[in-house]
């Protein structure tokens, strides 16, 4: 089981308190009905599914219930960092191997 740091509670808590909410930083169009089929497919279905560093959303559902973002390595499952929703994608990762 993973230990995840909630950036709102500022505490490491067990994975059971959290729900993964998929890839982060996928912006929903402000005019969703006007999207082309290609763009809608990219937004709705296509995922980067990286072997390595992933940016993803989590929700502290059995805690503060808030969404936040995390950076994790999908090979080791090790969390690099977590940050609050709405904050920009970190340009530089602390202690990243590459």
């Amino acid at each position, binding site marked *: 089981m993973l230990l995840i740091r909630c950036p709102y509670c500022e505490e490491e808590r067990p994975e059971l308190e959290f729900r993964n909410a998929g890839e982060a930083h996928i912006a929903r169009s402000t005019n969703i009905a006007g999207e082309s089929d290609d763009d809608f497919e990219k937004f709705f279905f*296509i995922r980067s599914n990286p072997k390595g560093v992933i940016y993803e959303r989590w929700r502290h559902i059995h805690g503060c219930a808030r969404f936040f973002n995390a950076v994790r390595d999908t090979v080791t499952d090790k969390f690099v960092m977590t940050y609050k929703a709405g904050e920009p994608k970190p340009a530089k990762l602390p202690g990243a191997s590459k």
Partner: protein
Amino acid sequence: MKKYSVFAIAREAMRGHKGWEEQWTSPEPKKEYDVIIVGAGGHGLATAYYLATEHGITNVAVLEKGWLGGGNTGRNTTIIRSNYLYDESAGIYDHALKLWDGLSQELNYNVMYSARGVMMLAHNVHDVQVLKRHVHANRLNGIDNEWLTPEQAKEFCPPLNIAREARYPVVGAALQRRGGTARHDAVAWGYARGASARGVHIIQNCEVTGVKRAANGAVSGVETTRGFIGAKKIGVVAAGHSSVIMNMAGVRMPLESYPLQALVSEPVKPVVPCVVMSNTVHAYISQSDKGELVIGAGTDQYVSYSQTGGLHILQHTLDAICEMFPIFTRMKMLRSWGGIVDVTPDRSPILAKTPVKGLYVNCGWGTGGFKATPGSGNVFAHTIAKDDPHPINAPFTLERFRTGRLIDEAAAAAVAH
């Protein structure tokens, strides 16, 4: 290829078993092949086998980064069934089931397909409605599936607890008698032996690190840890790593890869005569011919390539198994392991041509690909050989996520299957 038979066993017994040949050869890779298959699991090897036997294409290489059948083929719980809701799914899974029947004879290799019956339990009113809908839809598609009362379910599988006060009471079950299990390794080995005997090169410890495309956009070969290997046609059958390979060719996929776990108990005398599944509590159980209880759990909730998973997922499954089968509460578990499954948004596979000329993909089997192995290889070989999908896999396109023509087994089963 020397045929296996009772006479071969007798002959070898007479001369100290010195005449058995290797089941497949391990040649050095050539500079170029007609077709390269990426991934020597069951689906990839079956594809190579049917390319050779049904389409006369034998200048084929199957590249494998690890060892043959060491991915999800060697990690699944070997359940075989075809009782899917939609016509498209029924078509492809039943095509596979028909090939399972007779596969040992076809391959001259005992894959130990055992039609011992797959029973899916209903625990509440919603389950009853969903499973009965499946039974009716299956029968319209000519697939056997029947409804059982709790008493009939108990008769079919005696260790099952059908007490009304059980935490997950059994209120009925759907039974597909043609469903069952097979020996997963033997499926990979049998297809490998058959393909190798017809000239297919199986190259293990050869990881694909890049997909090369010619000036006109078509594929021209793959970069590997053993050098460049050319081919005008490439079939990607890489399970959890399919999106990684497809990205090398510049194709982004509607896939996410998750860990899926399974475990086996210590071996005991025959006690579970069939396969029992419960989608609601997410547990599968059957008994191998060695006597181990083979138990399948659900996926972890996050994308991962770690080939391991959280212990709480297994615990949840074992909780459910012990509720349904109180007889097993004191069994010891021997091993648990994880595989990486590639899941599509509609929980149906993608077996199709891609926007890149000469590049074909067979992926997205998610948590239930083993049962489809023969059928998947069979129609994928057709797709590669003819550069056109077989009618059975024609609906399983990559474009369906743009057109919206989904095959939404996710909604149908309310569970990754």
